[in-house]
């Protein structure tokens, strides 16, 4: 009896250990926003109105390993499109936020989430057609822009979920590399998208002109993950937004072990271009 007991216990121990290791595979890591986003209505007046206060948080990605770069180059050659270091299903990202009303009157606020992937930065204000017209419409942010009631001196917590951030990353690619109309990209759910045929850029002189297919289709395997998030706030009271980004690294090798405490030279640096097909950005 005793001669067979020990192997059984060894197997049991191995199973428990394996389960524990599996549970550690995509443990969440938190990156705090570098500062709060403060909106004071008294400072936001003027014509034209100044841009919304925005805080950007770049995700701390480790440098790409040589073997990963080689595998990525091979995949890019196979697909015929550029494949970024971090694609949408490499990470699960969510943004948790807390909104504080600093006044003793109830107020309402809107939180906007935009951001960048390795190629482009999305700035909705630059995509306003005929911005000088009184009924000009600006495309929505990638996420948010929902009115939030905040009690006097009160606090509200919220989260942009992992599935929402995944959708935002896809939408950003559709808008920028795909040249899809931002309204269509953001208002339609692309959860099950497998590939997308990029279109010709919007003609700034004739934004209503039809777009034509350009280049090979962009498969979901090549869709870039957002590498930084921009949190903006607008409110009718003096409020502060604090946030933290929660990341689960499915590959287990993308996030730097030290996160934002890592030396700058050990982090992947990105220089995305502001997506500005209408040429609206200040020179």
């Amino acid at each position, binding site marked *: *009896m*005793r001669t067979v*007991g*020990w192997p059984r*216990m060894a197997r*049991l*121990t191995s199973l*428990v*250990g394996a389960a*524990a290791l599996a*549970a*550690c595979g995509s*443990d*969440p*890591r*938190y990156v*705090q926003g570098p500062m709060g986003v403060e909106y004071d209505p008294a400072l936001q007046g003027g014509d034209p109105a100044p841009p919304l206060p925005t805080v950007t948080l770049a995700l701390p990605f480790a440098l790409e390993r040589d073997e990963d770069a080689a595998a990525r180059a091979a995949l890019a050659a196979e697909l015929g499109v550029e494949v970024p270091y971090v694609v949408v299903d490499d990470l699960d990202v969510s943004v*948790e*936020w*807390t909104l504080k009303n600093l006044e003793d009157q109830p107020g309402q606020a809107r939180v906007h989430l935009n951001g960048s992937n390795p190629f482009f930065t999305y700035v909705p204000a630059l995509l306003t057609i005929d911005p000088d017209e009184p009924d000009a419409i600006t495309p929505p942010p990638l996420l948010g822009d929902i009115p939030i009631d905040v009690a006097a001196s009160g*606090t509200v*917590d919220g989260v942009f979920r992992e599935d929402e951030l995944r959708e935002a990353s896809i939408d950003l690619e559709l808008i920028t590399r795909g040249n899809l109309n931002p309204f269509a990209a953001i208002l339609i759910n692309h959860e099950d998208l497998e590939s997308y045929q990029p279109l010709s850029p919007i003609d700034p002189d004739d934004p209503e002109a039809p777009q034509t297919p350009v280049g090979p289709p962009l498969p979901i395997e090549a869709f870039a993950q957002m590498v930084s998030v921009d949190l903006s706030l607008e409110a009718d009271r003096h409020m502060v937004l*604090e*946030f*933290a980004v*929660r990341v689960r690294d499915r590959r287990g090798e993308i996030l730097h*072990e*030290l*996160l934002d*405490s*890592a030396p700058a030279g050990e982090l992947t640096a990105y220089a995305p271009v502001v997506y500005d097909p209408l040429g609206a950005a200040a020179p």
Partner: protein
Amino acid sequence: MTRARHVPLALALVLSAPAAAVARPASTGYFAEAGFGAAVQLGEAGQSTAPGPQLAVRVGYEPWSWLALGIQLAASSHEATVPAPPEGEWYQLYRGAAEVRLTGRLDRLALMAEGGLGAVYISSNVLEKVAILEPGEALSLAVGAGAGLEYQLENRHYALGLAGDWWLLPAFASTQAVEGRVYLRYTY
């Protein structure tokens, strides 16, 4: 009246019984133990962490009834109560340790004391916000001690127990934790 006359005799029998009793038979040798309970962190860590459920398994060898050597694997889950954000997030502590246990038996009951040395892994860096963790820190040495009470069932292989332990995690800002558990122990 008849019943009253028998009371002194019955009392005498009851009082004399322990002297005649022998310790209930219990196996020695390889053992396995599974328990569940709760873990509570103390001090500053306790301000940022809610008590949470815990599961633990232990296996080892008991050469004599008074000494057992073994290893334990334990996992507990806790809600981080750090200032928001994040809000309502949970993390897990996974512990592996080597243990020594000393046991003194009195019939069917046993008192035991145990001590352990091992390591703890924390599944999240959420406690960085309150400086309990340093950047990149996820592992700590774990030093612990505890005591408990064990009840030997009539089947010599099985015992039920109630135990409490204290643990020190030096790398996690010297966090201390106390745990309580009930367990079932099987000795081959």
